[in-house]
């Protein structure tokens, strides 16, 4: 039985407008919170819900909120991270396009709890048309008295602004996002200090993902305890999964955490199985940064137990045999997929997106891409495979921000599980060359 909290009314015509959203019970949570709850009460409910950050890291949201420096005399800020750019992930886009008011409502609740009077939505630049959708929803909410001064007579003031990025994956990292929101290059900051102490304009700041903040709406409506009953173990509630690749029904699905992966992949309610006449070869379960798994290790963990779509079950076995739920960007690949090619395109992505601040990431991502390109086009050597593992190992853990890890993991995991394919590209180089049209022995990546 699937619970729909975020996508409950997603197919109701006009749900993106205030009137329809309101008629479906919208902004009830704001009324409840601002009239009957203190800011701390709201945080308490979020804590009780067990909600974990939906952007990828899975950090408990209530705990993150509790770190915010409330003693500071500076203003406090909430920033909504709508810089969704993790390959395979398009759930926030879907939610903002289809049901913007649930996000605005979540933002009002969260801002109230955190004491933010100016809240910013930082949305990736490519989602140009969604800026208009959000600004319209904000104007409607303001018109209805849910934004502005002294909201519902509570004394709480709030304005929400939308600020667009301009093409930089790195701005999904919270301190890079803050820099970008300040009108600067998206270079992640050196931590400490953490944003909870010194973030936007050096003021205490919380940065949360779109889905995380939207989820605060149903949490306040139903209560944290009720929300925590959904899901499994520490993976409470529901999660949006964006599914793509070689499946019959790509799209965004809301699942109860703990749904068996088999059901998610094969049921017609979700992915609808692998495209006709093909079989599953590998899965990237939570956005391109998480380790790729071969089909058998994805369906069942090393102990042979069926895997579930939950933080714990997917990471069972560590990186040796497991992966991560990450952002919920689910990429399924059938047997026609060349893992070397796929790994190269992902390495190209991280190379392109490295901010270039710290040396391991700046130099290492480019190096990996170039070596992978050689292998992909039949110019590689056997020792290149171990070289890649070593470069990945030298990047991982040694960079300013997690982009280094995110670049290293997919390469290391692909070689861990599909080494034979990399070797094939060396042992059958001429065959590979024939099948690849591009032929660039001295590869330079495209310039900006």
């Amino acid at each position, binding site marked *: 039985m699937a619970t729909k909290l975020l996508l409950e009314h997603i197919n109701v015509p006009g749900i993106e407008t205030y009137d329809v959203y309101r008629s479906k019970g919208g902004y009830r949570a704001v009324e409840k919170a601002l009239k009957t709850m203190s800011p701390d009460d709201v945080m308490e409910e979020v804590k009780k819900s067990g909600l974990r950050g939906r952007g990828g890291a899975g950090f408990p949201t209530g705990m993150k909120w509790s770190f915010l420096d409330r003693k500071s005399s500076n203003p406090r800020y909430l920033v909504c991270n709508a810089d969704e750019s993790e390959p395979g992930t398009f759930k926030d886009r879907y939610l903002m396009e289809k049901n913007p008011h649930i996000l605005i409502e979540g933002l009002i609740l969260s801002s109230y709890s955190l004491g933010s009077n100016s809240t910013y939505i930082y949305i990736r630049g490519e989602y140009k048309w969604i800026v208009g959708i959000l600004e319209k929803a904000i104007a409607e909410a303001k018109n209805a008295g849910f934004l502005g001064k002294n909201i519902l007579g509570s004394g709480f003031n709030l304005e929400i602004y939308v600020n667009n990025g301009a093409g930089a994956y790195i701005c999904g990292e919270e301190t890079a996002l803050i820099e970008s929101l300040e009108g600067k290059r998206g270079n992640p900051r050196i931590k400490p200090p953490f944003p909870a102490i010194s973030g936007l304009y050096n003021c205490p700041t919380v940065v949360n993902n779109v889905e995380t903040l939207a989820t605060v709406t149903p949490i306040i409506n139903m209560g944290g305890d009720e929300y925590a009953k959904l899901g499994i173990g520490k993976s409470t509630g529901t999660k949006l999964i964006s599914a793509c690749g070689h499946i019959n029904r790509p799209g965004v699905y809301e699942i109860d955490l703990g749904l068996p992966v088999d059901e998610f992949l094969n049921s017609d309610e979700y992915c609808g199985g692998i495209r006709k006449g093909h079989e599953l070869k590998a899965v990237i379960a939570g956005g391109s940064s998480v380790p790729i798994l071969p089909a058998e290790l994805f369906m069942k963990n090393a102990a042979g137990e069926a895997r579930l779509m939950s933080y714990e079950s997917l990471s069972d076995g560590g990186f040796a045999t497991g992966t991560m739920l990450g952002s919920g960007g689910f990429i399924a690949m059938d047997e026609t997929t060349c893992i070397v090619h796929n790994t190269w395109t992902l390495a190209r992505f991280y190379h392109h997106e490295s901010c270039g601040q710290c040396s391991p990431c700046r*130099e290492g991502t480019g190096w990996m891409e170039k070596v992978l390109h050689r292998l992909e086009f039949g110019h590689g050597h056997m020792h290149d495979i171990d070289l890649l593992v070593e470069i990945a190992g030298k990047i991982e853990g040694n960079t300013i921000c997690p982009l280094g890890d995110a670049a290293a993991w997919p390469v290391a995991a692909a070689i861990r599980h599909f080494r034979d394919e990399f070797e094939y590209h060396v042992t059958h180089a001429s065959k590979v060359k024939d099948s690849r049209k591009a032929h660039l022995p001295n590869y330079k990546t495209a310039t900006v």
Partner: protein
Amino acid sequence: MSQLFKITIDGETTEVAPGTTILNAARQIGGSLVPPAMCYYSKLKGSGGKCRTCLVEVSQGSEKDPRPMPKLVASCSTPIMDGMVVKNLTSPKVLEARKGVVEFLLINHPLDCPVCDQAGECHLQDLSYEHGAARSRYEEERRKFDRIDIGDKIQLHMTRCILCYRCVFTADQITDKRVHGIMFRGDKAEISTYIENVIDNDFSGNVIDVCPVGALTDKTFRFKSRVWFVKPMEAHRDCPKCSGKTVAWLSGDEVYRITGRKDKYGELEEWICNDCRFEHKKISDWVIDGPRAIERHSVISLNKYEKGIKVETPKKIGYGNTR
């Protein structure tokens, strides 16, 4: 005042003020346990954290919370805690990571030391000597840029740059109208003025001194001599713009170049003005105070002075050795 924090680095314990970074605590202890720093510069606000050569292992977070830190941390930007235990040279993990960082820094470096004016006083050279491998595993084409002049006295050789950002912070600090910065991103990032522009400021020459490699060099000294063939002498003059305290690099009675005075970590003691640096190249312009004991670079210091000048010969090349 608040009480001091106890910190142990490679088995040596000291007490430092709260808020001190691990690197600066190590510098207070001194010796070979001081981590190398290619981007951090104590006099430049905002510098540090980028090059990752100063990574260390924190094997005990603090007295109160003795758990180790899960990842290596940049010692230049991590504040100490009371009772923290840090491993630098005693950590195989650190040495391995540092070797990796050196390899990364070198893959796109031209390794043109034979024709580089910085050779002999290049921090990247020292770092590679100490932590690098003998051969590069990098087979791909290296990044290349054209040399550009930023003003008639300073040359930018971007190909050698390791993107430490020091020159940018310097410009931020000495002027409110910075004209050069970091363009583009990733491994395509470069120091540039974007449009043809001259760094025109009385103190702009200091970017040469803060550059850890040969990316920014003094055109008035270009190809004139190897640094180890000239003698560094402490010199001063009455200067209306700066302290006038410099190092004059002499060959006989000829002034080959003027630089600021650097401490044992290669950092300038004071900014000097362009007038002193570029316009006073006659021995009569200066009062020579005596030989400058160059504390950091053996190749310059060795066999240069008569007996009686205190120049220690280190047992081992480290970053905190007094030479």
